[in-house]
């Protein structure tokens, strides 16, 4: 498969570089593309779930206390969640901060 093995040799690739096992997206952690991460201010969050619906990566989930959080293994920092959040409780924090 394309990326699950660490740096495969050319002789180790699947036919046509196909991904031969389902679920490769889970195994391929793409969060390191991110330059900024979403940070929630829970005092202003109404738990409406709009951020989760709009997240193109599907990486936002709800914690035990009902507030949303992003799985940083996959979050690419696109900034859609703060753009869509109706209460403005999400801000993007640069990874250098």
């Amino acid at each position, binding site marked *: 498969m*394309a*990326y699950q093995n660490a*740096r*495969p*040799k*050319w002789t180790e*690739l*699947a*036919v*046509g*570089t*196909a*991904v*031969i*096992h*389902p679920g*490769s997206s889970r195994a391929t952690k793409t969060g390191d593309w991110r330059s900024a991460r979403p940070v929630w201010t829970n005092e202003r969050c109404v738990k409406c779930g709009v951020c989760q619906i709009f997240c193109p990566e599907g990486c936002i989930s709800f914690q035990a206390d009902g507030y949303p959080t992003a799985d940083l293994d996959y979050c690419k920092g696109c900034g859609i969640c703060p753009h869509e959040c109706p209460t403005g409780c999400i801000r993007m924090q640069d990874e250098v901060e």
Partner: protein
Amino acid sequence: MEKRIGIEASIAIAEAVGLCDADVVAAYPITPQTHIVEHLSEMVADGHLDAAFVPVESEHSAMSVCCGTSAVGARTYTATSAQGLALMHEILFIAPALRLPIVMSVANRALSGPISIWNDHSDVMSDRDVGWVQIFCENGQEAVDLTIWAFRLAEDPRVSLPVMVNFDGFIVSHMVEPLFMPDREMVKAFLPPFQPLMRLDVDKPITMGPVGIPDIFTETKQVQQHLLTQSYGPIVETLGEFAKIFKRQYKPVETYRADDAEVLLLTMGAIGETAMTAVDQRRARGDKVGLLRLRLWRPFPFDDLIENLGKVPVLGVVDRAISFGGPVGPVASEVKGALYARAQRPVVVEFVAGLGGRDVNVSDFDAMFDALFEAKRSGQAPAPVLVGLRE
């Protein structure tokens, strides 16, 4: 038993695809390939061929459909020419990368502009590097035979790559000629059922054609280079098996009266037949001229070329296309590249002939042989010659 019949090459090619029991034909009609597609459409409509005929809206779609149907394990065929091949260009690269053994006929035609529907090799030369096996035919018989062979080679598990069967538009495609039409049982004996290395299957999900990140892309290209280069062995082997059943032997480089030749000319495609007549006429006058006819274009048969050249001092190469602003003839460029590392190499004289359907006659070859003897005398190659150019 094969029957010898008078038949238009295009119709015979379509019948050959039928004999190979193709599962899918996805094609868009374009001159001079039209008769192939029309006839296949009729064969499917009349129930003579049990296949899905997909009348797509463009060649880009034709090749896209072919990739999809080949990926699910269907024996897939298409045909095109010139602008149609150009419109497929983007998708042509996908098929070999995904190891999809599609067979495609290309009735070679000039690319516009100015608008031309007539024959040369500028269409296929623009797709030299797409990663397909590319072979050339000189007449209808070869086009029929090599179409059948193409399915066998493409689907060989050691290869599993798409194959492009080239023949000259009109000059071959529209010629009515007497040819041996293979018989269904013989084709069956030669071509086993298609068993894909991998296919899309809802019960065993895989992803074909995922993104190739920079960390993997180089490795994928090495796989393609390796497979296409190594396909030479299966090519020669399957051509040999074809000969066993059909009694017609094809080689990567064909020769004609080349053994003791003092000058050799190299052609690719239908003009080789005219060139053989020219060779006979010069031989009758005592001139030791000979011919090499390049059949296999990709993978390029370097060793066959070198072996057949022997120690000949002068080689003329006839191209049917121009690499503008570059080395003029793409075939000559390849041949020169093949010779560079050799201590002993001939003077190479470059000709470009028959652009956009201009006839290449015996007298033109005669003039080329004159130029080769002049090069032999002087030891110098002239500047590339545009045969028949009005100056």
